[in-house]
């Protein structure tokens, strides 16, 4: 423990250094001027000036998800804080560790409707894991370090520290506790041994098992992915993963079934429906995954590993609930499997794989390629093929392009796929790419975008320009808010209400206006050259890839349907509207 006298603003910078923070994303304003003054002229912490506070939050998320560290943002009071809220909520739903420092009006003005005052702790209470209003300089050092502890321990999430301006100016003793032991918040890491034993009993006797893994494996760190791969190899079970969990098991791995859920593969969803033992590791039975709940995997016994006790039995009842960190539980599972000399039921497993091969034979991701128009699936596949062998990170916006990216870009490593899963935030991908590029300066970072989403945080191209970040924006441009249009086709008899992207900018000129390189491609014959040009260009690039305007994203579980009621691209010609009934139409 070290002690030194300094101002609140200096303490903030010192605490960031002590927490080994190298990069923060922010935007100055009246209520954070002392902190910006303390940042001035020091070289330990690099500040990235975004163009909108939402961009700061998503950039911090991208930084955190690709590096495993805590993402930090610094914004001013009032509009600074409210602008960051979408990003904070995004981080809460996807369990991303963030520390967000907000300025606040001086303590004596709080509650007076002062200029740029808002009730930041009140507003952010519901979209953070925890938040603090620092009322005195004595509390500041403890709260700063506690915030980092809370953000990254247990189920990670965003933490807000609201700091009034007078506290930033006040002088006090800075104490670095080094080891934070929280009074109440002590998440459990080790799974219960008896429950793990029960889980392994189920696994060893399973005839039709399936691993269903999620973002928890990635949040737990790279070791968890290694252990997961070992456990899959040890048991020989098939494995599928949620949107958030892609990359923890390699898409090139033999046991990989592809993503599951609303736009998951036929084999993954059918395996989930027909399995007799489901092993959920770090996923949360989200409604995009389960489809119709009362028909979700009706014949299976379920094992659920999660660090958050409230995730267990929340929507789906499970036989074995294991509360713990994925790394610890997976290690215990592997150790027990070996020490008890357990064996999978090989003959049963062989039959199960035979069945899975039949489902695979349905080739649910197949699409009809074209020589006259670029198919979005083909574009993503070419993107994957031409970037293979490089250290490539993919971010996305939200919509059809996001699902095509998840389906057709095969991820082999964790932390290389950044997407807004829980909240579904359009405008996430570009700022997230900035965060990823900051964490990995030499990597190839591509935001696979739609022409609708990209405009939501387009201003961050200016940030990319300022810091010479060579991010690549690959827009699958169909001139529609494609996922909205797809749902209107399915549910509202093709009445495309407000889903046409009118008055789009010229993306090539827009790129040039931001000092980046612009490429337009619309002929499938030119696609590879365009992608190669994008990769070879040393600075930022926007590719306006004109794709088939009416392509829909399949396969799909229509709302209100079960896993075994998927529609595939080749039966999409039939009356799709007839597939979804009135009750399904009510759902999101």
């Amino acid at each position: 423990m070290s002690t030194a006298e300094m101002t609140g603003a200096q303490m903030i910078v010192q605490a960031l250094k002590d927490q080994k923070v190298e990069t923060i994303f922010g935007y100055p304003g009246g209520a954070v001027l002392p902190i910006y003054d303390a940042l001035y002229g020091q070289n330990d912490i690099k500040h990235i000036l975004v163009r909108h506070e939402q961009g700061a939050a998503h950039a911090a998320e991208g930084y955190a998800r690709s590096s495993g560290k805590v993402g930090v943002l610094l914004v001013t009071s009032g509009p600074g804080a409210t602008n960051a809220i979408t990003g904070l909520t995004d981080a809460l739903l996807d369990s991303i560790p963030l520390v967000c420092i907000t300025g606040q009006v001086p303590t004596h003005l709080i509650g007076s409707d002062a200029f740029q005052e808002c009730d930041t702790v009140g507003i952010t209470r519901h979209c953070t894991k925890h938040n603090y209003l620092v009322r005195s300089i004595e509390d500041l050092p403890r709260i700063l370090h506690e915030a980092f502890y809370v953000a990254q321990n247990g189920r990670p999430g965003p933490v807000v520290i609201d700091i009034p301006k007078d506290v930033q100016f006040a002088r006090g003793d800075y104490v670095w506790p080094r080891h934070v032991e929280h009074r109440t918040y002590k998440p459990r890491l080790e799974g219960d041994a008896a429950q793990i034993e029960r889980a392994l009993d189920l696994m060893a006797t399973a005839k039709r098992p399936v691993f269903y893994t999620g973002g928890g494996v990635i949040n737990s760190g790279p070791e968890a992915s290694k252990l997961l791969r070992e456990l899959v190899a040890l048991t020989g079970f098939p494995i599928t993963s949620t949107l958030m969990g892609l990359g923890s098991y390699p898409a090139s791995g033999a046991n990989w079934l592809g993503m599951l859920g609303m736009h998951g593969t036929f084999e993954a969803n059918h395996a989930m429906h027909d399995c007799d033992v489901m092993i959920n590791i770090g996923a949360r039975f989200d409604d995009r995954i389960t489809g119709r709940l009362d028909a979700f995997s009706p014949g299976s016994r379920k094992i659920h590993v999660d660090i958050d006790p409230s995730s267990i039995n929340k929507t789906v009842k499970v036989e074995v609930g294991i509360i713990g960190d994925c790394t610890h539980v997976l290690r215990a599972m592997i150790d027990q499997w070996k020490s008890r000399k357990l064996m999978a039921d090989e003959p049963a497993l062989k039959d199960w794989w035979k069945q899975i091969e039949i489902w695979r034979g349905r080739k649910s991701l197949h699409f009809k390629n074209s020589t006259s128009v670029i198919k979005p699936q083909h574009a993503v596949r070419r993107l994957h093929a031409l970037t293979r062998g490089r250290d490539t990170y993919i971010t996305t916006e939200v919509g059809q392009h996001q699902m095509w990216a998840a389906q057709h870009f095969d991820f082999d490593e964790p932390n290389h796929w950044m997407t807004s899963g829980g909240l579904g935030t359009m405008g996430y991908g570009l700022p997230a790419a900035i965060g990823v590029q900051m964490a990995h300066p030499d990597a190839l970072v591509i935001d696979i975008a739609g022409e609708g989403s990209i405009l939501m945080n387009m201003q961050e191209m200016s940030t990319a320009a300022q810091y010479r970040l060579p991010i690549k924006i690959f827009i699958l441009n169909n001139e529609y808010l494609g996922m909205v249009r797809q749902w209107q086709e399915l549910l509202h008899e093709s009445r495309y209400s407000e889903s046409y992207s009118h008055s789009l900018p010229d993306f090539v000129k827009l790129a040039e206006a931001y000092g980046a390189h612009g490429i337009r491609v619309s002929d499938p014959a030119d696609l590879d050259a365009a992608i190669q040009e994008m990769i070879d260009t040393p600075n930022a690039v926007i590719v306006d890839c004109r794709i088939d305007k009416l392509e829909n994203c399949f396969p799909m579980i229509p709302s209100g349907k079960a896993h075994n009621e998927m529609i595939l691209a080749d039966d999409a010609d039939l009356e799709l509207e007839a597939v979804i009934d009135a009750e399904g139409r009510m759902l999101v």
Partner: protein
Amino acid sequence: MIAPSKPPLSPYSSKAFQEESKPHTLAVLVDNEPGVLARVVGLFSGRGYNIESLTVAEVAHNELLSRITIVTSGTLDAIEQIMHQLDRLVPVHKVTNLTLEFRGKTVARELALIKVKGRGQVRQEALQLADAFRARVVDASTESFVFELTGAASKINDFVDLMRPLGLVEVSRTGVAAITRGPNEM
């Protein structure tokens, strides 16, 4: 012809609908810090749970600990989820379901102040009933009484029902405070 009713299709459906909803008393030990009550109450409103009664006060000044007693109703699944969600809040130390974990071995009490207005015979009757319920008179004027009554919520409900025709003016209740019987902590 009327189509047969179909099972619920919603992914957000509904075995919960078929289960019976019952009241549960939860005792929650929290750090007495600003905003902690807002966190607890906000959790209930944000996730669509209801609060039937809520009591909160500091119980250990040196340790800055407060105890919140919440009566909420729900199915067993919903109550389990409520408890996990409460436990997840950073300033929460401990959550105990007094109804489930200590069935019949808890004491639950509520205090009520009840104002009744009236003269003559009615006034006399109110006073006699108060006596039967062991309510104390804490304020009196020539045309009113304020009674203080402590007991189970049901006893207070009964008393209030009896006072209504006799000139009930208003009621102020504290909400339920509850504790386990015997020597052990919650």
